């Protein structure tokens, strides 16, 4: 399947184009009301601000999926339009964004991309007819709830435990300092709690905890300095890609040999772009297998590269999976059926690298991989 819309044929004779234009005009004048109305699909995420890379990648992937389904004729003959809203990673903006989506008659929204926003928006969704389908929100706070929130990913608990097991085991870390972004506490705190419990169980110790909330004159150098104060044998960074990269830059300047560990939140290409050589050797948990040979995944990567001129990261892959689920649900929806029921009825969907299978509370399972940055790329660790 060619995911790219074929460019319009420009070589048509002028007369044909003229008449086509006239016909178009007439049809818009006389028959415009007869076109089937578009089917709105929502997206919400922090499209601007320091965590924008996660949301823009997700949005781009969803947009690609929408463009592909429209090129194939839409759903039931109706074209799908993507209504993208920017929550700016801010609770107030998130509410505005939700209102925007409601106004646009959106019933199913891909997003949000971060747990903090999810905690803000899920109560709103539960009070409405909208279903939220998040690609990346992993907070355990929403696990097992019968709400209008779905996700194509597991909770932080599974990932944190796995990372803890890896670093406690293979890396042999025992004393770990942690720097976390409180702006996304729903993720970072949960992730850290689950990590700490497992890490402690495996004999590790959190020697220092450094929390921050981003502001314009924040000093990552100072945060690095404090994290390295107790001389840990590893620093765990629970922040967005940009913050994690800048923090890693400072950590490398102060202690080039101390291993740095990053959560899935930072596992974007932005992390590598901003970290440069400084992020070489950093351990990053990943929701995707960068070395996957799955045909659907390879097709998607090619299409994404073609469309946007860059590779698709985990956010894009997860968002694309979420978009596939959303579009399939819209396609399979029965008349008058609540989309939540549709999703639960269908339950299992095809994904790029693995199937998406919801449990009754709308959560799915997704493998995580521990990768190491090598030469600007993520290498999956066995």
């Amino acid at each position, binding site marked *: 399947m060619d995911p790219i819309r074929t460019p319009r044929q420009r070589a048509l004779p002028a007369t044909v184009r003229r008449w086509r*234009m006239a016909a178009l005009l007439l049809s818009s004048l006389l028959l415009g009301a007869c076109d089937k109305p578009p089917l709105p699909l929502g997206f919400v995420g922090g499209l601007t601000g320091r965590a*924008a890379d996660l949301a823009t990648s997700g949005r781009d992937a969803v947009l690609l999926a929408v463009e592909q389904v429209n090129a194939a004729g839409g759903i039931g003959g109706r074209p799908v339009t993507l209504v993208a809203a920017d929550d700016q990673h801010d609770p107030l903006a998130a509410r505005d964004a939700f209102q925007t989506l409601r106004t646009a008659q959106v019933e199913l929204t891909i997003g949000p991309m971060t747990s903090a926003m999810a905690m803000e928006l899920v109560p709103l969704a539960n009070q409405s007819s909208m279903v939220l389908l998040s690609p990346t929100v992993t907070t355990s706070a929403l696990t097992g709830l019968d709400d209008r929130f779905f996700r194509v990913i597991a909770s932080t608990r599974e990932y944190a435990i796995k990372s803890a097991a890896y670093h406690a085991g293979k890396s042999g870390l025992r004393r770990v300092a942690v720097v976390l972004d409180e702006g996304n506490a729903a993720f970072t705190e949960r992730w850290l709690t689950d990590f700490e419990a497992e890490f402690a169980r495996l004999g590790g110790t959190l020697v220092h905890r450094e929390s921050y909330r981003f502001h314009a004159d924040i000093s990552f150098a100072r945060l690095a300095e404090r994290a390295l104060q107790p001389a840990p044998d590893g620093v765990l960074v629970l922040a967005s890609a940009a913050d994690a990269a800048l923090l890693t830059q400072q950590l490398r300047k102060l202690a080039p040999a101390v291993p740095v560990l990053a959560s899935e939140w930072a596992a974007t290409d932005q992390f590598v772009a901003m970290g440069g050589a400084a992020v070489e050797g950093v351990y990053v948990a990943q929701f995707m297998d960068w070395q996957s040979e799955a045909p659907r995944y390879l097709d998607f990567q090619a299409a994404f590269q073609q469309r946007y001129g860059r590779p698709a990261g985990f956010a894009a892959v997860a968002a694309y999976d979420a978009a596939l689920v959303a579009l399939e649900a819209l396609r399979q929806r029965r008349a008058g059926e609540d989309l939540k029921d549709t999703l639960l009825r269908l339950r299992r969907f095809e994904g790029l690298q693995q199937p998406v299978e919801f449990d009754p509370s709308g959560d799915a399972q997704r493998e995580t991989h521990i990768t190491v940055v090598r030469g600007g790329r993520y290498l999956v660790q066995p």
Partner: protein
Amino acid sequence: MRKAKPRSLQHLLIRQFLLIAGLAVLIMTVLLVQWRLPVARQQTQAELARVADLALTQLERSLDNAEALTLALAQVVQGRLFMGRSLGAEGDFDQLMAQLVSSATLFDALYLVDDEFKIRAVSLASHIATPRTELLGNDLAGVEVLRRARQSWGMQWSDQFLSPTQGVPVVAVVVPLLGGMVMLELSVERLAGFASDPALRDRLLLLVVDRRGELVAAPQLEMVRQRANVADQSLVRAALQGQPVFGDLTYGGESFSGTVRRSQRLGWGLVVAYPQAVVQAPIRAAVAISLVTLGLALIGGVALAVVMARRVDRRVGETLAYAAAIAEGDYQARAQPSDLREIERINESLGAMASTIASRERDLASQEYQFRQLVENTADLVIYFDATGTITYSNPSADRILAAPGQSLVGVDVFALVVADELDKVRQWVVRSEGGDRSSYRDDTTMCTPDGHRHLVAWSATVERDAQGRPSLFRCIGQDVTQQRAAQEALRRSEARMRAIIDCSPTLSIQWYDRHGRVVDWNPATEVLVGWSREEAMGRTLDELVYTTRQQQDFVGWLAQIEQTGQPVGPLETEIRTRDGRTVTVLSTTFALPGDGGAPLFVSMDVDITDRKRAEAELRASEKRFQIMFDANPVALAVLRREGDDFIYLDVNQSWVHQLGYSREQVVGKRRSQRTVLAGEDHGDVAWRKLLAQLDHERMILHTESLLRRADGSTFISDGMIGLIDTEDGQLLMYSVHDVSDMRRMQVDLERLNAELEDRIVQGTASLTQANADLAQALRTLELAQERMLAQQDRLVQSEKLASLGSLVAGVAHELNTPIGNGLMAVSTLQDRVRAFEKKLGEGGLRRSDLEDFLRQAGTGCEIAARNIDRASHLISSFKQVAVDQTSDQRRSFELKEVVDEILLTLQPAIKRSGHHVVCDVPLGLMLDSYPGALGQVLTNLVQNAIVHGLEGRNDGRIEVSAEVTESGVELRVADNGRGIPEAVHRQVFDPFFTTKLGHGGSGLGLPIVRNIVTGALGGDIGFHNRPEGGVLFFVKLPRQAPSAPAAAPAGDAGRSAGNGAGARAVVEG
């Protein structure tokens, strides 16, 4: 073919108006699309192109400052590096950077990066709060533009990317140095400000995208911040490929039309577009105006059409009402005057039509009346009956003929009128008609009236059918042909009779020919005449049968003439060749009859006139002979015809000419009174009248003396015979001239001598003796002349006998023809039967019945042949006897009946021709010893006399020949029922040369000869008397035994008897 439902005129006019309006709209639309819209579009595109060029210039100029600053700094840094300073090692460099940044608001961050991509120096715009020093040493190896600049060793512009220090979208320009790079970051807000420049026209969309299609500048800053990628738009892709095309663009959910440019320096694309609503505003306006115009035109057109159509409809409606009035028969209706010329003309035409129709209806009514009269008064029968056979109409003729008197046939079952025998035929036809058979009925049918009369009617019937094709009415017209058929039957029988007559006619030969002269048919008489049978002649031309080639050509010529003129040809005498080589003369008349196939059929009717011709020829020869004898007669003879008291010379003979010296031409045709040659002339009228009176009384004076004058004026005394002969043409006077002048002179001399004797008695008697001698001599001379004349008369009688014999021969020959022909035919038929029998015998298919048939036919044929040959033999012997008798004057003993029968037999042809009927009543056993030839001649002459004189002009005469024994012998009687003999000529009947037919075949010698023979050779008497019932009866009294001394020639007797004149023993009874 289905007929389209007719539409109203109003409908038609409205449709035409709408059609015109629609055509105008169509033309307008074509103009709009082909001309107006392209022009508007070109204007828009030109505007867009102008704006796009302007925007591209402005974009590049706005980046020029950043480039210039970066290059300048790069030159400074490079210069210091060349002077041995290291990057970031000097504080003054930092100061320089700080000065640059603080003094300019052209960038957001400025980095000095070493070859290891480590930040060596950095300058941040005043609004960025990030601690500057914290950034030093940060690794920027992940920044793509730096890597690109390092590789290319040239200034590079980046795409939009997240600032490696701020994490916000920026673009950067990098200038590589020897030992490092200078990178200048520009926030997208700055570029977005360019895109929303108010200097640009209202509602203009200006987009700047980087090489990946991400927005670098746009009127909506958040779109840039959100790094929206619009590479899905084909127009954007065209921009990035450097194609300055025009096209459509969807942006922010709105449609635009615009054009693109590509910055060669940056590799970025620039989109300039107007919302389609703006671009298409003039086009929409044009379309809207067109639609409004169309709508108005349609509404106006419909309204106008309705009004016009109603007006026209109203005017036409008046005419329609007028036409409807005419159609309903109101020919007096008047049209409303109209202001439309066409309507006026229609009204005029309708008026003319109405008057024409009225006239025609009157004619039709008249015709119907005429037709009714015709049907009612015709003699033909007219009947209508319906499918059940019940008569619904009958005309008076039908009622009169077929119905009970005074009643009508209406309501009567038609089948009850048909006789039972023919009922099936009629019913079958009716049934066939119901089955769809379209044939009309034409046949003769016998109809039966209630009172039992039968009429044969020739019917002609036609069938009228209803809409379902079933017969509803039968129309029959018939003609009572009962009498006609009877007449036809009579005609047919008449034709058959005619045919039988034609076929049985023994003498009238009839042939039919086609126009080429080929024989179509001929009757048995023709077969007898020519000897060719009908079957042989059929299809052949006459030159193959009886004609010469020349005759045939003439014949065909006549046929053509007949066909052309329609007039018959003939009667013509023609000589034909019979099959046995004889030449026969026929008198034929040919005429044309219409033949069967339209070609005329020519009928030729022939009568064999060979015998008549021969008789005529003989008569002519006889007359000629008589003329010769008349001329050669030494006695001068003259014949005159009496006209009152005068006479006209008919002829004189040579002797007369010689004696009197006049030429024949001088005399013939002249009146006696004009000449003085006749005796008595000199004696004056008194003497002549006395002579005539004596002649009228005595008819003949044998000696009368007259003084005649010759041509030279000399006169002489004639002692001649003079007689009056009564003929049909009047009285003839015949006289002979005998110059007795010498005798008289001798008598005078004698008297004078006597006187002289007396004197001589005195003087002597010697000379007296001499005178006696002279006298005797003169007397002898006179007697001699007398004898010569009588001898001449004998020869004349003899030749008459021969002529009679000739006709006898011809008659017998003809009579022979029939028995011999019959015998021949019987024999030849028998021959054919024998051949056929032999053939059948040879084939082995002989049956007993064949043998019996053959024997019966052979017996019949032989019997016929024998009977006919016997008859021929009998005829020949009779003829032989007659011939011998008549030529030999043989005396023998004979049976009177036989001789009479034979004679009558020889006369049969003449009798048949004349049409008279001869009855013979001679008893058997009357034996005579006499001269049968003479007797035959007597009987022949008497019968011919009856035919020629007594029964002249009739063809139904009856001639009775009978004989009776008397005391003295036998009395033979020949009687006819003709006109009898006038009393006046009874005395002259037996006079020679007395005839009523002089010049018409009568010789005047027939009865004198008869009397001569009877009183001469036969020794009997002859006499006659008119019968009370009409006609004359001659009776011949004959002794049983003829007187002896038959040596005396009968002719001589006759001559003497004639000479004795009144002394003859002929008896004329009252």
